[in-house]
């Protein structure tokens, strides 16, 4: 019975494996060894590979280590500082984020008296659910968790859930700064969400489907040139959504000391702090899919199925690295200014983008 079950699983995994000609001999050899073959088959099983390794959890963690260091380093360069350096000096402090993460891990996570204890502890962990769910639907070539014709809509809707958890975190903290921060987060949510969804909608109209495969297929010219207005709206909405510096309003360090996350410490703070970065990763992936041609790029035979993954991640990382520069250029908007921008010019631009999308669909 048990052996049959294992055989069934093994069969299921091997039918749908990521094919990488470069390591194929090693995989073939490993598949002949009992027990190890099951693990290898599981790792190379396409849905598992997409969700847990790339572009899923594994790459997400590597990306977090990279972006925290890169952003600090880039901002420091622009501001004539040096930035993180002393942790692993030969590589210019590149493992600073790892060191910080380890420190968070061993630090005491303090829960203050006024906090709603169960929610306070649960919410940073629960906040990962809307972060991890969109990864199921983000395809990279043939490597995909769940294939769905409504993948883009699903990704957008899961991303829209993240601010709810942030507001809940601020509420559970039950302190002044956290309260102000979560209210600001809610306001910013109103400011960007409508233009953001309309911009995505215009692209769905343009491609005629919410399926990323069709979207990527139709982008012989990158979507950024097909609908530049939606491109601009998406970028600004992305800055607002991830509370990066021109719209760093909910987390404003200098005013309300990290806003909703002010009471957190230890590993809980580590989890809460990376939320915005994870959101940025998801939105940048969506951005790449919609505007930069997704995983399309020159093929390379030896890497096989891995090549689209590499192209997708490369484009995403480049987008994120460029966006990180914005932090050192602009000062923070006031809440009312950001709301005004969101409901006037950005909304108007997004409607223009929608018109362009509809006209494009009609022409096609």
């Amino acid at each position, binding site marked *: 019975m048990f052996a049959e079950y294992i055989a069934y699983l093994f069969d299921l995994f091997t039918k749908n494996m990521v094919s990488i000609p470069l390591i194929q001999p090693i995989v073939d050899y490993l598949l002949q060894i009992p027990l190890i073959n099951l693990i290898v088959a599981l790792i190379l099983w396409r849905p598992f590979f997409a969700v847990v390794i790339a572009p899923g959890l594994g790459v997400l963690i590597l990306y977090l280590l990279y972006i925290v260091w890169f952003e600090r380093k880039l901002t420091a360069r622009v501001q*004539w500082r040096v930035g993180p350096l002393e942790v692993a000096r030969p590589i210019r402090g590149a493992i600073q984020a790892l060191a910080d993460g380890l420190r968070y891990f061993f630090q005491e996570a303090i829960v203050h008296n006024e906090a709603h204890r169960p929610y306070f502890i649960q919410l940073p962990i629960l906040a990962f659910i809307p972060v991890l769910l969109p990864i199921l639907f983000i395809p990279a070539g043939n490597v995909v968790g769940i294939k769905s014709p409504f993948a883009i809509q699903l990704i957008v809707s899961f991303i829209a859930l993240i601010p709810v958890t942030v507001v809940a975190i601020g509420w559970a903290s039950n302190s002044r700064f956290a309260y102000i921060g979560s209210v600001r987060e809610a306001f910013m949510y109103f400011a960007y969400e409508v233009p953001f969804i309309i911009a995505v909608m215009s692209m769905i109209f343009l491609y005629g489907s919410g399926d990323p495969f069709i979207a990527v297929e139709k982008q012989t010219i990158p979507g950024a040139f097909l609908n530049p207005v939606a491109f601009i709206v998406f970028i600004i909405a992305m800055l607002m959504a991830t509370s990066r510096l021109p719209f760093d309003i909910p987390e404003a360090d200098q005013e309300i000391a990290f806003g909703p996350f002010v009471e957190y410490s230890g590993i809980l703070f580590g989890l809460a702090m990376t939320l915005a970065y994870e959101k940025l990763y998801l939105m940048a992936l969506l951005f790449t899919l919609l505007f930069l041609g997704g995983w399309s790029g020159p093929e390379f035979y030896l890497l096989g199925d891995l090549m689209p993954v590499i192209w997708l991640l490369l484009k995403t990382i480049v987008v994120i690295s460029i966006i990180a520069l914005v932090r050192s*250029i602009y000062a923070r908007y006031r809440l009312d200014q950001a709301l005004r921008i969101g409901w006037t010019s950005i909304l108007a631009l997004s409607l223009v983008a929608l018109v362009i999308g509809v006209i494009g669909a009609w022409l096609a």
Partner: protein
Amino acid sequence: MMRIEKVRPNLIKTIKDHIDAISVAAKQAVKPDRITIEYPRERRKYPDNFRGFIVFDKDKCISCFRCAHICPANAIVMEDYDNRYPSIDYAKCIFCHFCIDSCPTGAIKTSKVHDVAFKSLDEMCLHTTQITKIPEIVRKEEKYTVEYSVERGVWKLVKKRKLDNLEVEVPPPEVKVRKAACIDPESCLGCRLCKRVCPQDAIRLEECEVSPDLEITGTMCVLKIDVEKCTGCGLCVRQCPMQILVLEEVKE
């Protein structure tokens, strides 16, 4: 009449400003103009008159106490060896270097050692024997000397692969030989403060004694300064309550 008006947004100027800001940031991100010195690894070139660790030269010292007297923080205490030499308490020292300016013979001088750190308060009081040379610096990674250069308001770093010498060579001050002398012996009180304070025992008093029968033996109370022994430190000049002692230049 002045009137405050709402700023009218100028779209073209706004876009130009945005592009300016972004291009400056991009330029700095690629090639920053930063002028940070990576301190323990790079040594900044300091000027020769840098106010750093104080170095003492015993051979030049004439024990005049001027450093101890002028010190505004009371950091200098004279210690007793074959003569009186200064010791410096770095817990008090404010690095004003008045002591160096006041030294008539250039026995204490500055150095470019600026990172004087101690493990405890007791260690901060450096004895005379500890300040005769600059502390040994053990720093393997220190390889470069860095200097700021400013051209038309633009700051740049000039890096050289050579370590700057931390010791400062100061030309010895032009010392005019001066000796103590009494300008008005008539006014001398005979208080003998000058004799007591003289570190060289150069002042001698010819004493007179008055017996109970009012017989006076010896001459009057007369001050005699031994010119050979006098170093011209001026301690007696400062002590004299009648201010009749001066330092006179020795004419060749």
